[in-house]
């Protein structure tokens, strides 16, 4: 039995536009995704902002009811058996929110230990263990409002582990952290699977997913566009060449023309300071630089370069399609 299973999972939000003449509008945040995570696996959901990662995780942790499809965690249905699911999962999200700033780190953990039903006689020992694990020992009696972002994030991780859950959902746990803080969190995450936990991690950092995950599903615009081990994804882009063209104001039609060229595998536009960079991945044996430039009439062109594709290109290509 898979630890986490999603089958054709969908979520639509209803929103309104206009003030006086309000119109209902439906937004499909998740468009029928399916995946399975095996026990003890660290599975990554990788995608850009707005791809549907957080919506997916919130359906799995019972905070949102899917509008279609189904999901099971440890064999339990996330809608019909929500209460049972909650007992056996932990949830950690990134950022500074989710902490009672006026309470100490210790009191934060004490409060959630009660909420998660940790037996009274075990609470003290469990909290001490976790403070040790996340490196907050000696600072636990200070108010959380004085903690750095990294410390708050580590407090989040400790909170998520209080009731020793079998499955952990980590929603962009390193977002906004400095490199040292992010590395510490990543080390803690890596140690979780060694302790037998199943982890579902969402991130928009390719290197993070690559370094931590056994398998990755790339999600874009609410759909899974690729799934496999980090090695599988790398293999998918090992061939080809990347042409980068610095442009100043590129029209949508020009982009479409470049995309239609024979031999072009993917096209993406990256914003870099005041310019845009057109990143075109082409087949290895074709030379398309001149053809690309010929299709950019009307745009100011700057520096042009050719290079081998990287893993980052694979990700950009997948989420730009």
């Amino acid at each position: 039995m898979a630890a986490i299973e999603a089958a054709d999972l969908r979520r639509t939000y209803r929103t309104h536009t206009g003030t006086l003449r309000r119109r209902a509008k439906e937004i499909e945040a998740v468009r029928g995704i399916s995946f399975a995570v095996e026990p003890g696996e660290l599975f990554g959901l990788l995608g850009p902002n707005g791809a549907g990662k957080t919506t997916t995780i919130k359906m799995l942790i019972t905070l949102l009811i899917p509008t279609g499809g189904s999901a099971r965690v440890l064999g339990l249905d996330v809608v019909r058996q929500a209460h049972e699911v909650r007992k056996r999962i932990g949830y950690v999200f990134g950022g500074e929110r989710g902490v009672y700033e006026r309470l100490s780190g210790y009191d934060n953990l004490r409060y959630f230990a009660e909420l998660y039903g940790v037996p009274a006689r075990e609470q003290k020992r469990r909290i001490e263990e976790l403070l040790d694990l996340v490196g907050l020992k000696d600072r636990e009696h200070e108010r959380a409002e004085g903690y750095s972002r990294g410390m708050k994030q580590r407090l989040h991780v400790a909170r998520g582990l209080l009731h020793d859950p079998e499955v952990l959902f980590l929603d962009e746990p390193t977002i906004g952290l400095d490199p040292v803080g992010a590395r510490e969190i990543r080390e803690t995450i890596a140690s979780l699977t060694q302790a037998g936990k199943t982890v579902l991690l969402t991130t928009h950092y390719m290197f993070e997913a690559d370094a931590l995950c056994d398998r990755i599903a790339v999600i874009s615009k609410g759909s899974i566009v690729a799934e496999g081990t980090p090695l599988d994804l790398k293999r998918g882009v090992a061939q080809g060449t990347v042409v980068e063209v610095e442009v100043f104001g590129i029209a949508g039609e020009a982009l479409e023309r470049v995309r239609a060229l024979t031999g072009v595998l993917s096209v993406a536009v990256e914003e870099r300071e005041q310019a845009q960079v057109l990143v075109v991945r082409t087949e290895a044996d074709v030379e398309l630089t001149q053809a690309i430039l010929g299709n950019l009439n009307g745009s100011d062109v700057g520096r042009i370069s050719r290079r081998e594709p990287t893993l980052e290109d694979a990700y950009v290509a997948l989420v730009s399609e």
Partner: protein
Amino acid sequence: MRSSLRLVLVSWWLQFKMIMRSPFDGFGNVIYPLFFATTAFFVFRAGDSPRTLIYASLGASVMGMWSSVSTSAGSAMQRERWWGTLELLVSAPRHFSLVLLPSTLGLATVGVYNLVATLLWGRFAFGIDLTIEHPLLFALSIVGTVISFAGLGFLFAVSFVRFRAAWVLGNFFEYPVWLICGFLVPLTLLPTWVHPIAWVLAPTWGMNAIRESALGGTPLPDLLLCLALGLAYVGAGVLVTDRVLRAARVSGSLSLT
């Protein structure tokens, strides 16, 4: 059962700690009751009857308690949204009512300070000498009133979880309850159609119980009615909690601030 009681107690203490550590809330709690009391004393001093002033003094003290619960219960839920903790509370395995109740109980407990501050303000600033006829029943009436206020605050808070703008309701209910429940003006002076509304509001009976015990009377029936209504609010709140949470999970409104 034991662990639920422990959860309520620990949560109540930590919620109370948070409220007391907020400089803004603290300042409001210190100043507000004094304003209420001063206004009431000036209005009722015109009557030139010591008993009327004591009546007003007790009424103003419960006004402060009620204001603390009605306005803060909504904003407390709103704060949980801003802090990003509401989703964590909802996704916890304990029944959400056990999470919410200690929060409103903590607010109602702060209201006890309002009561004491108002009575002391009346004593030292306006020379109102309050002799409590039945001290034990007076203390029990305060406890009963706190519990019933917490129950009503809990019922409000459940709706605040589903509807973000519902905290406005807390402010909306603040003043009518002062009037309808006889905090300053006896219920008998109000139109008869108001009476049934007053009867289903626990503050009416809490206020009566406090006055009867302080001024000499039979507070027990009022106290029991106050407690019964408070518990009924809690029961109603528990019953609608699951429905409200499901609606919030369907609409996706839990994460909105």
